[in-house]
């Protein structure tokens, strides 16, 4: 069993992965390709199959159908210890009966790498924990354990590093700090990272590419900016950030835009930013792209305008105020206004008009579920 270990990351390819558990399907025909050296995030709610996908890549779970290729080599039938892959587990899974140093050296010893302790010490230096090398894992804080888990995986220089919600147990401040460090380490070592998370901010912050997963399938994949700017499904629009979504029949279609009629008012979106051009269509806009006006403004056709509506909730979140505006026939519309000292002075119960540029709107390929609508 001569597994070749590489200093640099390799690409990962999943072909038609399907996973059935007794009673339910966890993953539905998943295809995925992650280029070598990329930081790739698999984002989705709990139970969407993202952790199962990770475990299939690690070899800890067997796919019902489909193939796993690492660096072009089919490893579907390989045992976990034969794969050039290491995992940072959600609960860290540090060995409680070994010192921190022995934990980190474990993989090296198994592969009979020469001088495992020196290399393990180096890895601990990378995560700035060499002074705690002789402690037991239980004597460390959560953040320190997390770093040990990372060092234990990184020291092996795997072709692919799998991270299963590794920051989930840390408090917000530490989590943001570790995000920065993780990203820096990834760039430094040049490994391929597959990061599984349900935290959309974490995914957007660190990943080169984000795949949004729902109910065992990838709904949309792309760079974080592209995904945020133009979500293609109602699920992505709502899971990755917030969205206002309007549903109506298409009443006009020209070369540049489509318009739907929603409660007698027309809402338009650019044609090239819309997935569907006829029938019942859902159009959306991000809350920070919308603004509200105390009086009905006079706007050109490059803007959408709805109203008047009543402000039913104002939430102060520090950098911005979140306004919830109930517009009859449209439901609740969320508007973010940045706190730059000149936001319009409005009070709860005030009547306002909401507008946004047509170019900021996006058209979805599906319609939001009723349940999603109520939640939003």
């Amino acid at each position: 069993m001569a597994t070749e270990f590489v200093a640099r990351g390799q690409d990962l390819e999943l072909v038609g992965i399907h996973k059935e558990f007794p009673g339910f399907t966890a993953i539905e025909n998943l295809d995925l390709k992650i280029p070598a050296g990329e930081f790739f995030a698999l984002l989705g709610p709990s139970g969407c199959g993202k952790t199962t996908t990770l475990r299939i890549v690690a070899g800890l779970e067997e796919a019902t159908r489909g193939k796993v290729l690492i660096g072009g080599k089919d490893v579907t039938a390989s045992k976990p210890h034969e794969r050039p892959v290491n995992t940072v587990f959600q609960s860290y899974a540090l060995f409680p009966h070994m010192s921190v140093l022995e934990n980190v050296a474990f993989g090296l010893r198994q592969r009979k790498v020469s001088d495992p302790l020196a290399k393990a010490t180096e890895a601990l230096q990378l995560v700035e924990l060499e002074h705690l090398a002789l402690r037991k894992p239980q004597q460390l804080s959560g953040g320190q354990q997390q770093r040990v888990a990372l060092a234990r995986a990184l020291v092996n220089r795997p072709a692919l590093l799998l991270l299963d919600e590794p920051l989930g147990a840390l408090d917000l401040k530490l989590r943001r700090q570790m995000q920065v460090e993780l990203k820096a380490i990834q760039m430094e070592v040049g490994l391929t990272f597959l990061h599984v998370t349900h935290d959309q901010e974490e995914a957007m912050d660190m990943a080169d590419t984000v795949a949004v997963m729902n109910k065992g399938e990838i709904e949309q994949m792309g760079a974080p900016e592209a995904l945020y700017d133009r979500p293609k499904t109602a699920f992505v629009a709502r899971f990755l950030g917030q969205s206002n979504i309007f549903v109506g029949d298409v009443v006009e279609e020209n070369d540049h835009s489509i318009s739907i009629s929603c409660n007698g008012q027309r809402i338009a979106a650019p044609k090239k930013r819309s997935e569907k051009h006829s029938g019942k269509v859902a159009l959306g806009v991000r809350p920070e792209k919308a603004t509200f006006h105390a009086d009905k403004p006079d706007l050109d056709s490059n803007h959408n305008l709805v109203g008047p509506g009543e402000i039913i909730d104002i939430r102060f979140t520090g950098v911005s105020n979140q306004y919830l505006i109930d517009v009859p026939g449209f439901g609740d519309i969320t508007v973010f206004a940045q706190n730059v000292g000149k936001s319009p002075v409005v009070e709860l119960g005030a009547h306002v008009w909401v507008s946004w540029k047509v170019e900021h709107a996006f058209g979805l390929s599906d319609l939001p579920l009723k349940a999603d609508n109520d939640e939003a």
Partner: protein
Amino acid sequence: MKFSLGKWLLPTYVTLAFIFTMIPIGYTFVFSFNKVEKSNIAWKEFTFDNWLNMCDQPVVCEAFGNSLAIAVISTLISTALGTAIAIALGRYKFKGRSATNLLLFLPMATPEVVMGAGLAAQFLNVGISKGFWTIVVAHVMFTLSFVVVTVKARVATLDPRLEEAGRDLYANASSVFWRITFPLLLPGIMAAAMLSFALSFDDFIITQFNSGPETTFPKFVYTAAARGIPPEANVIGSLVFIVAIAIVMIVQVRASLKAKKLRA
């Protein structure tokens, strides 16, 4: 005058209970220093002779040696088998798992007399003459359940992700077992082994049915008790007691030192 019941009753009760439990042990210990001519029932004179020449009565030491050998061998076998069964029951789903779980309780629930007699009948059926090895077989049979139950409790607290982490870090099945599973189960396995040893060492009923001419320490003491136990038996009894207490104390001290170190 007010008589405070709680102030006197509880301490008195506890003291009496302690004295009551300690009497046989105290008697055994004190009479191991008795100078004996005919029988060891009445106190004569203090002497170290019994301790210095505890093998003067050859039967005593032979019986003790037999008991020790049987306990060690049956403990090794039942601990190895029981640990394997406990891991299988705790980790894997297989056909007949719940039946196995249930059957394991039977030896603990069955009266020893019934088990001993039942096994003796089987040896008779098959035509095996009773002796050292039939005792070993009998002891493995009844200690196995206790080992499984003890180790299984430890398996239940073992996070399966630790073994997964081992597999992920290039350890094959046997390395995962010896470097991760086994060390983490070790406290449970040791407890099971000690329990098994203690059960085997002082078993009388099942041994009586399956020993044939072979003498064990409990068997010897039982027979000797009719004519007054020789003081050498008291010496061995006291020795076993002291060793057991010493082991418990060492384990406790080590555990508390470790806990102190962890807190620091």
